[in-house]
């Protein structure tokens, strides 16, 4: 029987409750990764069947990809802008705020781009149930767009809190930034999956 140390380990005190939002996002990313792994492995299995007709990805996707990547850069610049300040609270007057707003707008533009892509496919007579590839196209882009909309809602919430209270918790911003980058990376992966037939 070993004895246990008598001195309490130095852990962060309870007041760091707020740290939760950032770790919460990280944990959620694991779940999202898993979900998309499930979706795309279903796609890979489905691609092996004989009736797979590969459809060409609408051009607009590349434009919206550029928009999303740009937004990712902007939000990163915004985060670094906050980095220099030691405070755990981010103040309203920070210059990063405008960049957050710009990210939000670009995010909306990305979702709009996806909508145009769906319109383009529908114009070719390709709907959700038309063939396996179109099913997966709508499914993957749709579920991803939903997640991006979630990020947009979070950005809107950040901006609203900044405007109302004048400050917002630092780790909340960090969480949203991590989530946003992840959405961009996830999109690049999905784009490859959609365009390339394995």
């Amino acid at each position: 029987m070993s004895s246990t140390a008598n001195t309490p380990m130095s852990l962060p005190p309870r007041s760091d409750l707020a740290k939760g939002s950032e770790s919460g996002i990280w944990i959620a990313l694991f779940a999202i990764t898993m979900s998309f792994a499930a979706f795309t492995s279903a796609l890979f299995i489905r691609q092996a069947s004989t009736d797979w007709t590969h459809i060409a990805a609408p051009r607009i996707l590349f434009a919206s990809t550029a928009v999303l990547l740009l937004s990712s850069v902007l939000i990163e610049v915004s985060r670094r802008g906050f980095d220099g300040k030691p405070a755990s609270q981010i103040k309203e007057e920070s210059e990063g705020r405008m960049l957050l707003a710009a990210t939000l707008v670009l995010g909306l533009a990305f979702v709009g781009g996806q909508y145009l892509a769906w319109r383009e496919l529908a114009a070719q007579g390709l709907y959700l149930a038309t063939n396996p590839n179109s099913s997966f196209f709508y499914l993957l882009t749709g579920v991803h767009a939903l997640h991006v909309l979630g990020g947009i809602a979070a950005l809107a919430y950040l901006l609203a809190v900044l405007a109302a209270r004048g400050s917002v918790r630092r780790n909340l911003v960090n969480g949203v930034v991590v989530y946003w980058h992840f959405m961009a990376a996830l999109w690049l992966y999905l784009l490859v999956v959609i365009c390339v037939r394995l």
Partner: protein
Amino acid sequence: MEEALKSQDHAHAPAEGFLRKYVFSLDHKVIGKQYYALALAAVFIGMVLSWLMRFHLVWPNAKIPGLELIAKTGAPGGIITPEYYLSLLTMHGTLMVFFVLTNAPFAGFGNYFLPIQIGAEDMAFPRFNMMSFWTTFVAFVVLVTAFFIPDGPPISGWTAYAPLSAIGKDAGPGLGWGQNLWVISIAIFCIGQLLGSLNFIATTLDLRAKGMTLMRMPISTWAWFITSSIGLLAFAVLLPACLLLLLDRMAGTSFFIPSGLVVSDRLQNHAGGSPLLWQHLFWFFGHPEVYIAILPAVGIVSHVLTNSLRKPLLSAKVIIYSMMSIGFLSWMVWGHHMFVSGMNPFSSLLFSFPTLTITIPATIITLIWLGSLYGANIQITTASFFALGFISMFVSGGVSGFFLAQPSIDIYLHATYFVVGHFHMVMGVAAIFAIFSGTYFWFPKMTGRMMNETLGMLHFWITFVGTYCIFMPFHYLGLVGNVRRYASFVDDFMPALMPVHKFITIAALTTGAAQFIFFFNLIHSRFRGKQATANPWRGTSLEWSIPSPPPWNNFGGDHPVVYHDAHQYGVKGSTGDFVMQTSPEQILNE
């Protein structure tokens, strides 16, 4: 100033008003109780369904008075139709696996005790926590609604194998809106569990009290932590699978439905889907789900045993590492559900090995329990008896796993009652024994009153013996080749086995009836039970350092400081043979 800080850093203020206090509460303790109550409702329905099934199997043409009022087409004149039997089977499995075995040991007890055991005032995200319960509640309501629609509940089993589950009402009664409700319910349930798991992980990582290192956490906390990590990933797979199934059913896609199927004389308008894809996705979730049910049980039993033995287990660390390896291996074994399902025969062998290997950590845990009993001073309580009963069930259900893990034996035993006996023992009954153990153990903490031990013992003995009478003969039936999921036994070799089935049915009705003792005890003790002290079992972990029941903010605004791990029993402390985690006294080496 100090006081102001304290109340400020709590995630929420004390609840006011009935709705905030008892319904839409943010308090993890209330939410834990809500989960537990939901599981009780589900287990009650599930148990009644199993009675109806057992009754129908041995008296197939007997009228069950009044049943026709609930199921007009399912049981015309009170006689259960084949499809209604399958509806009962599907709903029994779904309710038990999702709403009982996941809800009670994991979400219920976990919600109540995980924050307390690590010295937190609440979960990391109390609002998510409340949402996760109410989402689960909605899922439950949606599922149960299936009983009351004209078409009746689905008949495709809790595994909902495609294409049976994907085609729609052509495939049979209950596969129209009944199956839709099932898929929707499970998808909603996944969302609830994802929110819950996220909360458990974040709470364990971020909110531990000062001095509460990971290795000082009680085994139960560890079990919930590991389980939530499994749940986070497993439900993240089931959710997309449900979405794909729903699209196949409602939007005409063909993820799981191949071409050229003729169902009810109608050629189905689908092409190119893969039925095996559903099985892979489902079991990729489904096998880890087994451990979502059983790991919290292992944790609860270890926690109760450590206390009842009045000495630490041989090694808590080894149990924790074993649970981790079970959690890890659980991702590599899903294919053992599919040995004869048309998967590549080579992969069957590949899946067989991790399946056999997973018995090693399970055996280690069992041997540690058994070895720890040696030289102990076992306190006889209903809680400890249920924990010991759990070990017995875990062993019984575990050894039958050896048969099913081998593809060649599975050729013969697959889809027989042997499988039914196996999973009911190891995952159903064992987990339920742990729930009982946890209930008798923690009831004083949760309500401030003791449960009646005499009734508890009576409940234990009937349940323990009854359970063996029900589930052990299932294995014998399986060895003869009795196929499961049959609404009645029309096969030529079955008359010889009917006496066994009758025995099982009578045992099931008796054992089921004994559960009313438990229900009564629960309600009676809640209002009339003896007042409980803060630490009636002389326990070491943090939940015993606060009043019973705990105040709204658990530690009354204090931040507990932890000096020891939770296993300081059989030592000389100032209060007896144990030293509490919060006690700063020095423990000398033996």
